[in-house]
């Protein structure tokens, strides 16, 4: 029951290689079918996100070097030359593969440490593989454990609690001031990349009403259409400031919002709280606006500082998360050993019984002088001896997890007692 992982991620491969090796849902299903049909794996699951493509599989006992066969298959499937993949692909077996998956689901292997999306992606990949029948008892158990690790890390550590991008830090700040954003209005000045990131975050957090303003009305309309916002003409921006609770500015002009303008807007809105996020460089909002009553002004440096603090805070949580990962790796390997152990012990029990029957058959004919009762007694004594030698320790091994942990290398036991043909 070997577990094999072959894949690449943002650490080992540039985006040009990652995008060539990524799988759509349909491709993943097809590849899983191929790999099982070719006898490379009995169980298989493919995890493909923008930052990683990884194939987890359980090869048949008789399969030699499944990782090499899988690398070759990936190269053929995606039409990428092997020399391009060399150096980008990593492969792990057993404990290392299990640990890697658990780290992935915990967010420890993500580009943004502790990001939450990966857990959903692992869940979705597992669901798809399970539904298509590509997984089996080992991968089912493995991925259920991985999902549990992800959940535990998120609930028991601070790894994923703090915002790690300027846009999400801004949203968290808005929630500190206004609580839930469903009943609030946001105005976004500018429609560039940063503005779009902010708009996307605002939508994710359920902003009640979204206004978009840009010098190019066509671009504003395009963004507003995509995110379900309303366009406000650029000429009306001073009046537009009076309504929203959150104003995000990211335009390439200096001091779009002067202190006096914000002051007039605050007077018109009767000092209702206003969060100004100035993401422009040079700054779009006059710093003097921060002195106004109920105005909360954050510029790009302030938000970047928050992100830096949060990154340090997340990094300090890594040991706690790693501890949870290790705990579950041990738990999984113990389960895996117990399953293998049961198979080996059952085979061993069968073999012992057969040996006993053959032994008795061979020797009883020379013991014709004994009565039938003596024959039965001898058989009973042999049964008792067998129980003492094999069955009792087997029962103990089934029951005691700690004992199983000590005998993780079950192969040795198997090779010791069972010839090749008897292996389960």
């Amino acid at each position, binding site marked *: 029951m070997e577990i094999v992982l072959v894949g690449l991620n943002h650490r080992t491969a540039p985006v040009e290689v990652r995008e060539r090796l990524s799988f759509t849902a349909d491709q993943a299903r097809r590849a899983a079918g191929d790999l099982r049909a070719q006898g490379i794996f009995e169980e298989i699951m493919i995890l493909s996100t923008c930052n990683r493509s990884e194939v987890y599989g359980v090869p048949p006992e008789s399969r030699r070097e499944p990782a090499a066969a899988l690398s070759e298959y990936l190269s053929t499937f995606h039409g990428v030359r092997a020399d391009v993949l060399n150096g980008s692909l990593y492969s792990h077996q057993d404990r290392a593969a299990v640990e890697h998956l658990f780290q992935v689901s915990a967010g420890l292997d993500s580009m943004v440490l502790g990001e939450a999306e990966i857990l959903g992606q692992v869940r979705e990949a597992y669901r798809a593989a399970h539904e298509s029948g590509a997984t089996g008892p080992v991968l089912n158990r493995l991925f259920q454990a991985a999902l549990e690790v992800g959940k535990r890390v998120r609930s028991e550590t601070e790894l994923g609690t703090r915002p790690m991008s300027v846009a999400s830090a801004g949203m968290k700040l808005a929630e500190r001031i206004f609580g839930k954003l469903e009943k609030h209005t946001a105005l976004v000045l500018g429609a560039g990349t940063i503005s779009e990131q902010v708009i996307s975050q605002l939508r994710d957090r359920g902003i009640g009403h979204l206004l978009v303003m840009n010098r190019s009305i066509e671009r504003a309309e395009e963004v507003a259409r995509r995110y379900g916002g309303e366009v406000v003409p650029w000429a009306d921006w001073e009046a537009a400031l009076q309504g929203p609770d959150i104003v995000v500015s990211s335009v390439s002009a200096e001091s779009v919002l002067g202190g006096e303008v914000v002051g007039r807007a605050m007077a018109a809105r009767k000092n209702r709280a206003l969060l100004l996020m100035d993401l422009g460089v040079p700054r779009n909002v006059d710093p003097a606006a921060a002195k106004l009553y109920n105005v909360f002004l954050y510029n790009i440096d302030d938000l970047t500082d928050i992100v830096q*603090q949060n990154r340090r805070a997340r990094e300090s949580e890594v040991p706690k998360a790693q501890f949870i990962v290790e705990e579950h790796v041990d738990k999984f390997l113990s389960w895996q050993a117990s399953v293998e152990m049961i198979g080996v012990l059952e085979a061993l029990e069968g073999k012992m019984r057969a040996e006993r029957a053959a032994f008795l058959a061979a020797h009883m004919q020379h013991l014709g002088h004994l009565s039938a009762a003596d024959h039965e007694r001898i058989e009973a004594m042999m049964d008792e001896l067998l129980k003492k030698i094999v069955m009792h320790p087997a029962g103990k091994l089934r029951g005691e997890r700690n004992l199983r942990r000590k005998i993780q290398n079950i192969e040795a036991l198997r090779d010791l007692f069972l010839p090749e043909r008897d292996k389960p």
Partner: protein
Amino acid sequence: MHLLAIFTVLAYGVSLGLYLRLLYADQKIVGRAATAMLAAGLTLHYFFLLDRAHQLQAVPYQDLYGAVSLFAWLLALTYFGLELFHRQRTLGAFLLPFVLLILVAGMLGHPVAPAGPPPGHGMVFALHVTLSVLAYAAFGLSFVMSLMYLAEENLLRRHKLGTIVWRFPPLDLLERMTRSSVMVGMGAILAGTLLGFVAVRRLEPPVSDFDPKYIVTLGIVGLYAAYLYLERQTSWRGGRASRLCIFNFAVILLSVTVVNLFLTRAHRYF
């Protein structure tokens, strides 16, 4: 010290520890445990007050220490209700130190049987006192939340976020919780005052209708009514309303100390 008192302090103490832990590690289980310990503390505290009343053969507010302990209990009880209503636990870490401080202060004195019959008695009088103490507890809670609001607002405006600000309730929620607490206080003080007038009418021999405490209480009602009106006006929302709430509670402290001690006889219970 009474065994029940020790267990009460312990339960509140453990609850405070868990609320503080919650500030640093946002774990649901810790929050639930904190609330459960607070509920345990409230129950133990209730039985402690009951036991004390049995010892004295009088209501808990008969002496200063009993009244202080009752105040602490009602303060914790009001917070418990608000926590369940608004589903916000962060405040526990800021409120329970006050509860513990007041409770321990109330426990320092041994129960003393009243020298003579109390000037007021009966159900109406008991309700008058209990509702008044509840009102002070609710206003006390709004005072703590207003302080918290100003602290959080200050940290947000100065961009000093650190770890804890992320755990604070949103400013908007703090405003709503303060308003809820003031409304509980207003209801309690209005009903309590009304019952006070009824109790005075029933006193034998009759006492003078006028007491400076009436004016101060009406002033307090007026100040909190002003708060409830102004905090909905956009120009007052936020820091200004919180400052008014803090000022109002300062007036209450003045009322229960200076006014009770020096300006009134009918309300001088200590």
